[in-house]
C-alpha cells in the first residue's frame, strides 16, 4: 500500500469534537489514539508512523471532574494537573498527591488520567490510588458503553482489555465513606521526574474510637499490574493505627523484579515500610 511507503505522508490526524465521530473513526480505521502525547512520543519507534492518529483531547465532555449521583466522574482526557487543582473529598488526597508525581508539571499539564491507565505501565503513578478508590473504567464504542473494574481493565504489562474500536471515556469513582482519607507514598532515586521504585496508595477510615473501619491499600511497581493488598486491608479493620502491622503474608500477591531501579528483594522490603507510612499518613490526618 502506497500510503505506508517510506517517505510518503498520507497519514491522517483526526481531531473529532464529538464522541460519535471518534467512535466512527475507531470502527472504520486502524488508528492510534493520542491524547497528552506524554507516553505516545517516548514509546514511538523509529521509522514512519504506521497508522492514522486520533486526537481525543477536543472531544466535548471528555475532560473534567464532575460529581455524579453516586460518586465522581473523571473524564478520560482530564489532565493530571486538573486532578490536583480540583477541590475533592479527603478520600482523593492520595490520588491528588500522585497527580503531582506524574513526571513533572509539564507532563501533568498534558498527560491524561485515561492515558496513564491505557499505557498500562507497572509503574504508572495513577493506578494504585485509583485502585484504592474502587475505580471503574467506562469504555465506549459505536457498539455501546460498558463499565469494568480498573483491576480487570489492566491485564498485564502494557496490556489492557480495550478493543481496537473502543475508547476509554471516563473513570468512575463511587462515593466513599465520609471519614475516608487517602495518602500516596512514592519511592524514587531523585525528587522530580522519576519512575517509582515502588509506590503505595491508601484510603483509610477511622471510627469514633480510632479504629480502622475502611481500608484500601494498593501497591505499584511490585507486580506486572499494580494491585490491592486485600489480606492486609481485611487485617486492618478494627485495628488502631498503632496496631498496624504489615507481614510477609500481606505482601504475598507481589512479585517485584530486579531492575536498574532496585532489586526485587529491596522492593519488597521497602514496600512493607511504605504501606505502614501510607496507612498511618491517611489515618493520621483524620480528626
Amino acid at each position, binding site marked *: 500500500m502506497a500510503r505506508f511507503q*517510506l*517517505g510518503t*505522508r*498520507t*497519514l*491522517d*490526524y*483526526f*481531531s*473529532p*469534537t464529538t464522541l460519535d*465521530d471518534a467512535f466512527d*473513526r475507531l470502527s472504520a480505521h486502524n488508528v492510534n489514539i*493520542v491524547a*497528552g*502525547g*506524554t507516553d*505516545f*512520543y*517516548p514509546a*514511538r*519507534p*523509529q*521509522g*514512519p*508512523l504506521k497508522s*492514522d*492518529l486520533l*486526537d481525543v*483531547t*477536543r472531544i466535548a465532555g471528555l475532560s473534567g471532574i464532575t460529581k455524579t449521583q453516586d460518586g465522581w466522574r473523571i473524564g478520560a482526557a482530564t489532565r493530571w*494537573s486538573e486532578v490536583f487543582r480540583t477541590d475533592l473529598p479527603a478520600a482523593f488526597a492520595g490520588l491528588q498527591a500522585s497527580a*503531582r508525581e506524574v*513526571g*513533572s*508539571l*509539564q*507532563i501533568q*499539564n*498534558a498527560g491524561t488520567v485515561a492515558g496513564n491507565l491505557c499505557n498500562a505501565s507497572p509503574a504508572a503513578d495513577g493506578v494504585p490510588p485509583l485502585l484504592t478508590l474502587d475505580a471503574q473504567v467506562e469504555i465506549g464504542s459505536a457498539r455501546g458503553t460498558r463499565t469494568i473494574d480498573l483491576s480487570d481493565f489492566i491485564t498485564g504489562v502494557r496490556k489492557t482489555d480495550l478493543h481496537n474500536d473502543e475508547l476509554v471515556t471516563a473513570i468512575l469513582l463511587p462515593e466513599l465513606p465520609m471519614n475516608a482519607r487517602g495518602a500516596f507514598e512514592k*519511592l524514587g*532515586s*531523585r*525528587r*522530580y*521526574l*522519576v*519512575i517509582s*521504585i515502588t509506590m503505595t496508595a491508601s484510603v483509610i477510615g477511622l471510627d469514633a474510637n480510632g479504629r480502622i473501619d475502611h481500608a484500601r491499600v494498593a501497591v505499584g511497581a511490585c507486580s506486572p499490574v499494580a494491585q490491592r493488598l486485600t489480606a492486609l486491608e481485611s487485617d486492618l479493620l478494627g485495628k488502631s493505627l498503632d496496631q498496624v502491622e504489615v507481614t510477609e503474608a500481606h505482601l504475598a500477591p507481589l512479585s517485584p523484579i530486579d531492575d*536498574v*531501579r*532496585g*532489586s526485587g*528483594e*529491596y522492593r519488597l*522490603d*521497602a514496600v512493607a*515500610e*511504605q504501606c505502614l507510612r501510607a496507612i498511618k499518613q491517611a489515618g493520621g490526618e483524620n480528626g
Partner: protein
Amino acid sequence: MDKHVSETVTDFILNGDHVSATPIAGERLSETLRERLGARDVKIGCNAGDCGACTVLVDGDPVCACLMPAQQAAGRSVETLRGLAREDEITKRLSESFQNLGAAQCGICTPGMMTAAVALLRNTDGPNEEQVQDALGGVLCRCTGYRKIIDAVVAAGQAEVPMQAEGHAGESIRRLDGLGKVQGTEAFGDDVAPAGTLEVVVIRSPFPRAGFTFGDLDVFGKTAGVEAVLTAADVPGRNVFGVIPAFMDQPVFAEEEARFRGEAVAAVVATPEYARDFDPATFPVTWDERAAAQDVHAAMAPEAAQLHEGRDGNVMCGGFVQCGDARAAIAEADVTVEGSFRSGFVEHGYIEPEAGFAELVNGRVEIRACTQAPVMDLDSMEIILGIPRDQIRIIPTGVGGGFGSKLDISVQPYLALGALKTGKPVRICYSRTESMQSTTKRHPSDITLKIGATKDGKIMGFDFFGYFNTGAYASWGPTVANRVPVHASGPYQITDYRAESKGIHTNCPPSGAFRGFGVPQSAIAQESLFDELADKLGIDRLEFRINNALENNMPTVCGQVFEQGVGIKPCFEALRTAWDDERTAAETFNSNNDTLKRGVGIAGGWYGCGNTSLPNPSTIKSGIRTDGTVVLHQGAMDIGQGANTVISQIFATALGVPVAQLEIIGADTDVTPDAGKTSASRQTYVSGSASRLSGEAMRAQILARVNASEEAALTIGNGQIKVTDQGTEHVIDLSTLTADNEGYVLRAEETYDPPTKPLDENGQGIPYAQFGYAAHLVVVEVDTKLGTVKPLKFVAAHDVGKAINPMLVEGQVQGGIAQGLGMALMEEYLPGRTENLHDYLIPTIGDMPPVETHIIEEPDAHGPYGAKGLGEHVLIPTAPAILNAIKDASGVRLTQVPTTPSRVRAAIKDKNNGN
C-alpha cells in the same frame, strides 16, 4: 464533523502573532516551532519529556513541546522564551535576575527554566523556594547546580544589579555573553542550519561487539531522498582519530568489526523528509554478534578477544608514582586500613546533544558544531579529510554543556564527509540515545587501597592500585591513567607512597575526559579510608586531615615542592565551625528520631591545572581599530563555565580599560589564535595568563608611544587613545597609524605555556605548575528503612588563588557539587540499559540543597593575578564527603557508587541483622 487536519493548516498564536503551519500527522510541536516557524529558542534535549528544555507555554501552561502533537496547538496561544523576552514584563524582570545572579551558565536549559518560571510567577507573587522547585522540577540543568536558578526566580524583580564598575579581576560582574542566553537568541549546535538542510543519520552497531557486512549500498543510495551513503571507504584521509597522538585508535566508521554498542559503521545523508521516517534498522547491513568483554576482569581473561593490536591483555597503558617505600612503611605502621572501591560509567548528561552544520564555502569545508576544542577538531579533520589544513575552518557554535566529552570529535567528520560528498550543506543532531551510546563516559573504577598511620595520626604508607575501564578506544584514557597516581594521595603529605593505575580496553563506549579525569574516583577510596583511619585512631576526622595536610615547602608524592600557594589547610579550617555545629545538630536530631538519621561528612581534594607534564600553550590576540574599538580574540571555549567573561576581565585589568568596552571575537580557526582546549581546569590559569600578557603588551606599546609611566590611565575611543599620566594628558590619534590586514592599528598576540617537567619512571618531577585545593562538608539524612539519602546542606571551601569573578566561582562550585552528588547517589550508565534520561538519572532541582561557599585565596605565583583553575576541583571531594556522611549517619560504609536506595538499605540490613 471531524477536523481533518492532515495537510491542512494549523493556525495558532505564537508569541502574540497569528501563525500558520502545515505539520504532518505525528509531528511534534517542538519540530513545527523550530523547523517551520523558526523558533530555535525552543531547545530539544531528549525528545521524551525527560529534560524539559523544550518547555513552552500553551494557553499559559508549561508543557514539553516535544510531547505535544503540533495540531493540538490549533487555536491556542503558544509562548516561547524569545517572544516572552520581547513582550512580557515578568520575563524581563526574570532576565535581569538570571543575569545578576548567574543563573544561566551554558544556557541550553535556560529557555525551559525561564518559561516554566514565568508560568509560576504569573500565578504566584513572591514564590518561596519550594514553590520554585515544584514549578521547575521538570527542567534539568547540568551546569548550575540549580541554586542560583532558585535564587533568581525567588528574586525576580528585586535583584540588585551587581556593581559593574570596571569589571576587572575580582569583580562579580554579569556574564558578558549572558543576554543571548536569557533571551533565547544564542545559537547552539542544532540552531545554525537553515530549515530544509540535508541531514546525516549515523548507522550504529546494536551489539557491544559485532562483525558486519553491507548489503547493496549502491541500490540503497539510489532510494528517493537519499543523497549519499558514507562508510569507511569514503574517508579520503586516514580513518582514525584520537586526542592523544600516540594512542589514536578510533575509526570514523568501524571496519570489519564494531567494538562497542553504538559505534558508527556508516551514515546516510538524506532529505529531512526521508531522515524523519528512516529507521536505521532497515539499513542494508548484516550483523554477526560476537562474544564481548564488558568489564575489566573479563577483558583481561586469557580467552578475551584483543581489541587492539599491540595492547596485550587489553591493557591500554598504566600510570605509576612512587616515593619512599609504601609497603615497608605499612608493615611498620601502628594502624592500617584497607578497602576496595568501585564506580560505574558516568554520563556527562549535558542537555545539548552533539549537533552541528557543515557547508562548502569557496571550496573550503566549514564546520559549525558544539565543541570544547576547536583547534583539536581541526587537527583531527586534517587527518580524516586528507586535505590541507587551510582548507578547513572550525567555527564553534554555542556549547550546551561539555564537561569533557565535547573535547573529542563526534559529529564533525560526518558533517564534513557529508558536505564534501554531496557538495551541499548538511546538518546533524544526535538523538539523546545516540549521544549516550556513542560519546565518552567517566571511567568505571575498581580500586584497592591500603593506608597505614602512626598511633599519633601521621600517615605512614599508602599503597593504591586502580583498574580503569577505558572502553573500546583510548580517548583520554592515558590521561586518566597518568593523572590518578599523581593525585591519589589527595592534598596530603605522604612520604611512603605507591600508586599504580591500569587502563583496560573493553567492548564498552570509550571512556574519556569527564571533570576530574579519574581523580573523583580515586578520591572516593582515599577520603573514605581517611575516615576509617581517623576513627580507628580515635582522632577527629577533620583534625586528622589538617594534621596530614600538605603545606608550602613540603614535597608532594611526585617530589614537587611548592614555595607558595598550597591552600588545603585554610580550606579545611574554613569548615571547622560548620563541622562542630552540624555534628552537634545531627546528634540532637538523631536522639529524637529512630528511622531518619543525620550525619556529617567531610572530604578534601586537589587538582593540578593544565596538561600533565606536557606543553599546554594558549595564545590570546588583541587589537585596536582606527576608530578606537578594542578587540579581544578570545579563543578559550566557553562551555558555560564563564571563559568569555573571565578571560575578558583579565585582559581589561591588564590593559586598564573597562571590560564593557571590549569587543569580543570568539573561537574561529580562521581569525582567532588557539587558546587550547577547555579542559584540565586550565582556561582561567593558562588562557588567563596569555590574556594578561596580551593586555600588558598592548598597554606597554601604548605607554611607550607617549613615554608614559606604568601608572598612566588609558581612555580609548573615538579614534584616539588618551593617556593621562601624572596630570599630563597625551593623545594618540589612531587615524595617523597604519592598519594591518585585520584592521588593527595596534595589536598584541601573546602565548603562555605553564612551566612543567617530565615525570621519571617513578612519577617524580613537576607535573603541574599549580594545583587548586578544595574541601567539602555535607549533612545528609538517611531514611534507614528505605535507604534513601537526602543531602541537606553543603559547605564548600575552595582555594582559587584569586577569584577573578566570585559569582562565577560560586556557580562552578554549585554545579560541580551537583555532579558529584549525582555520581554519589544516582548516576550509573549501563550500556544497552540506561541510554535515556529517565533510566539514567541526574539530579533535579529538588535534589540540590543549599551550598555555602567559602572562597579561599592563596595566591599562585604563576596564575593571572594569583588565580588557579577550579572547574574540576569542585566535584572531587563531593562524593567521598557524601559517603562519609552516610557512614556517620547510619554506620554503614558504602564502597560502591552510586549508593542507590537499594544498595544503602541492603547495607543497613546487613549491619542490623536484617532490620
